[in-house]
């Protein structure tokens, strides 16, 4: 399978390990990722919360690049994914905006590009195919799949059911992990509120961690750089603020899939965690 790849800025910096794990797992599964030529920022947060037009124009350029390359595109970052999907919708449904953007960027967008989250792309090869690649079943791994908000919302734009998403659960089930049903799958992690409303954001993070741990989870899998950062790097602050003692590793889901496929933990960027994942990795024999 050939597909365009839009890593987005996070995967070039704080979430490098997400990028690395994604590329490795994709290669292993025979998914050929083609980086979009000269891609630009998707416009998340900074642009989309201040300028409606820019919010569509920035991702539009990336879509046009994909269209020129004749490829659909897969997006690992939840925020990028949502920006691209919403821009596609705006461009195909709102003629006036489409015209304005075409003028600005000097080319029209035909609307031919389909935008997939990384979850959909991997699920697209078939769960059986995936299961066949598993050499190290994640049997001991009690994992709570955490989707966050942007991946599944707004309804109709997300990649899965907004109330009870299942895609990541299915993928990790195929890797033989023990996937838990829990209540905070699609809750907000506080995102960038952590800078302006620190206490509020920490409370949100605390709730997620607590619910996962109460459900019996020994690890959390996620599909969004910001979610991972918040849940991973803020655990210490949460513990300090609320007197808790969380120490639960937060994985990117392709990291776990990679482990199951027998890839080396260091190649999957598993050394970059704040919360040491070694115990969890050892538990699955990694």
């Amino acid at each position, binding site marked *: 399978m050939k597909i365009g790849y839009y890593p987005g800025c996070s995967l070039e910096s704080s979430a490098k390990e997400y990028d690395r794990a994604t590329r490795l797992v994709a290669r292993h599964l025979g998914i050929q990722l083609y980086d979009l030529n000269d891609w630009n920022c998707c416009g998340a947060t900074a642009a989309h919360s201040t300028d409606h037009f820019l919010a569509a124009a920035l991702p539009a350029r990336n879509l046009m690049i994909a269209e020129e390359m004749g490829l659909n595109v897969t997006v690992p970052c939840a925020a990028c994914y949502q920006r691209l999907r919403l821009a596609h919708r705006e461009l195909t449904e709102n003629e006036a905006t489409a015209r304005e953007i075409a003028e600005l960027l000097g080319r029209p967008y035909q609307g031919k590009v389909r935008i997939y989250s990384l979850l959909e792309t991997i699920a697209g090869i078939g769960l059986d195919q995936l299961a066949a690649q598993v050499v190290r079943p994640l049997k001991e791994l009690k994992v709570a799949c955490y989707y966050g908000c942007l991946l599944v919302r707004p309804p109709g734009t997300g990649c899965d059911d907004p109330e009870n998403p299942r895609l990541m659960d299915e993928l990790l089930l195929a890797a033989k992990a023990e996937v838990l049903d829990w209540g905070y799958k699609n809750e907000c992690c506080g995102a960038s509120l952590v800078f302006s409303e620190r206490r509020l954001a920490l409370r949100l993070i605390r709730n997620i961690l607590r*619910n996962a741990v109460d459900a019996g989870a020994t690890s959390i899998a996620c599909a969004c750089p910001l979610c991972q950062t918040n849940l991973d790097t803020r655990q210490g602050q949460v513990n300090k603020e609320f007197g808790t003692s969380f120490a639960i590793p937060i994985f990117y889901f392709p990291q776990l899939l990679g482990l199951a496929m027998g890839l080396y933990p260091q190649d999957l960027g598993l050394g970059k965690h704040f919360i040491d994942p070694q115990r969890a990795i050892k538990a699955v024999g990694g």
Partner: protein
Amino acid sequence: MPRIGVFVCWCGSNIGGVLDCPAIAQEAASFPGVVYSTEYKYVCSDPGQKLIVDAVKEHRLERVVVASCSPRLHEETFRQVLRRSGLNPYFFEMANLREHCSWVHPDTTVREQAQRKAVDLVRRAVAKAARLEPLFPGKIPVVRRCLVIGGGIAGIQTALDVADAGLEVLLVEREPTIGGNMVKLDKTFPTLDCSACISTPKMVAVAQHPNIRLYTYAQVEEVTGYIGNFKARIRQKARYVDHSKCNGCGTCWTRCPVTVPDDFNLGLGERGAIYIPFPQAVPNKPVIDLEHCRRSTRGKCGACAKLCPTGAIDYEQKDEFVDVEVGAIIVATGYGLFPWEKVYGEYGYGRFRDVITGLMFERMVNASGPTGGKIQRPSSGKEPKTVVFIQCVGSRDEARGKEYCSRFCCMYTAKHAHQILEKIPGSEVYVFYIDVRTFGKGYEEFYRRVRDEGAVYIRGRVSKVYQDGSKLIVRGADTLLGEQVEIAADMVVLATGAVPAAGAADVARMIGIPQDKDGFFQEAHPKLRPVETHTGGVYLAGTCQGPKDIPDTVSQASGAAAKVCGLLLRDELETNPLVSKVNEALCTGCLACQPVCPYRAIQPVTITERLPGQPPRERVVARVNEGLCQGCGACTVACRAGAIDLKGFTNKQLIAEVDALCL
């Protein structure tokens, strides 16, 4: 050319104040066929009517034109005048000088134009009058028997009322017992009297009524015919128990080795493969659910047959068909619950056992229900201390549910809240609502009482329910305080909205009655004909027409019964003579008219045609059933051959009207 009389009405100053009525009458006198023309202050008054009667006699009038107000108001009045004058009442035509002329063109600046328009309108009426034909309502005999489909409280009430009037009733219910949803309820709001105590005596009355024939575990499969003369086919599903032998002793159902989740208790309890739905079922005789019966799943058992003292068990029983003739049909198929599990992910898609529906709560709190009246969490069997009610689940939700209000949920939720607070000391009750609608007698008082008892009403929607350990966390918005609220609940009760009963669409298609956009059966007029349908002889009772509570259901059921009595207690029916007719000589039998008719009044018939010099030939032509035709005329235009015409609005008349107006 018939002799036409024209009567121009002043309607006091309503017409006379704007138009020159004498001048109109004078001009009308010169129209073709007019032999008498006059004006009068109030033609509809007694002396005005006498004027017509006298003029008909004196001037030997054959057609009458009254130029006055809207025919929607007085056409029938004047037809009666013609009848009294000895003329066919359909020899009458009206010109609408008031609503369509004097009232809308009162200004002196357009007086001349208005006057000219009035004359044109009278000319039109005269042109049509000259081409009127005598029409006679047909007479059709009436079968004095009524079919009631559905044996819930609506069907029961309507059947009893019709039967009490001395008419025969066939009551068909698809479940093994009558009683419907009402008999599942525990108490009824706002009086809190026991639902079963007031409905089971009526069920027994149905079973014992000499004029009611009861078909339970049966379905109407086909309906043909028309008002006064329907034919219906009823399928009596095999019960595998011969009810003529069974004495209802109960040995079989207490000893059946199989246990199946019980649909009467919405899965909260269990029953055997041979069962009666509940102890007061009518008839109080069992049926065998062959799908789960061990004899059919494993090939051996036969315990019930061995135990039955009367030898009533018959595993070889087959479905039977009964063909009946009835004069009227009352549809009372009731409602079902909105399938919330498919839609509402935020309430868990039915994954959480302690999220239940209001109807499940009714069964739980019912002393004869699966828990013996104990309120308990389905997950643990423990008594819940904190209960959250969520209103409008499926109702008032354009995006994912239904746009309409289901009407009774506010009140049953208030009742449930009361029951929790009464039965569980120290319990907490929270109700999330959009609006509280207490539309009935004593309802607002009841709602206030429940609030005073301690139920906390929170105005807002619930965004999420999730399991947190043994608790259900309910997160919602309090829109009055502008805050998010989170409640750790033991049980969540959803006020699921009402939708048409499963199979309503099939019933609609079978009988030929329309459904509204939500699938409820469409009444003939939302205000003035709420129990009739557009199909003559078919009436509606209860929630199949739209969500309603028990008092409204019973009222409508009695209303439908009154309509049926009014219909069936006559010897004959008069049919509306303004119906379509087919000129068979012109009809080519293409039947393009057939699908256009909303009343299925057009059917093909084979006629033998004898043309001079040719052998007789069999040919298919369309024929209009005058009992079914309502006179819309859609078929007349669908017929390209011009073979169908509408009596009272014939092509000839309409063309003459066009010509007269354009003169």
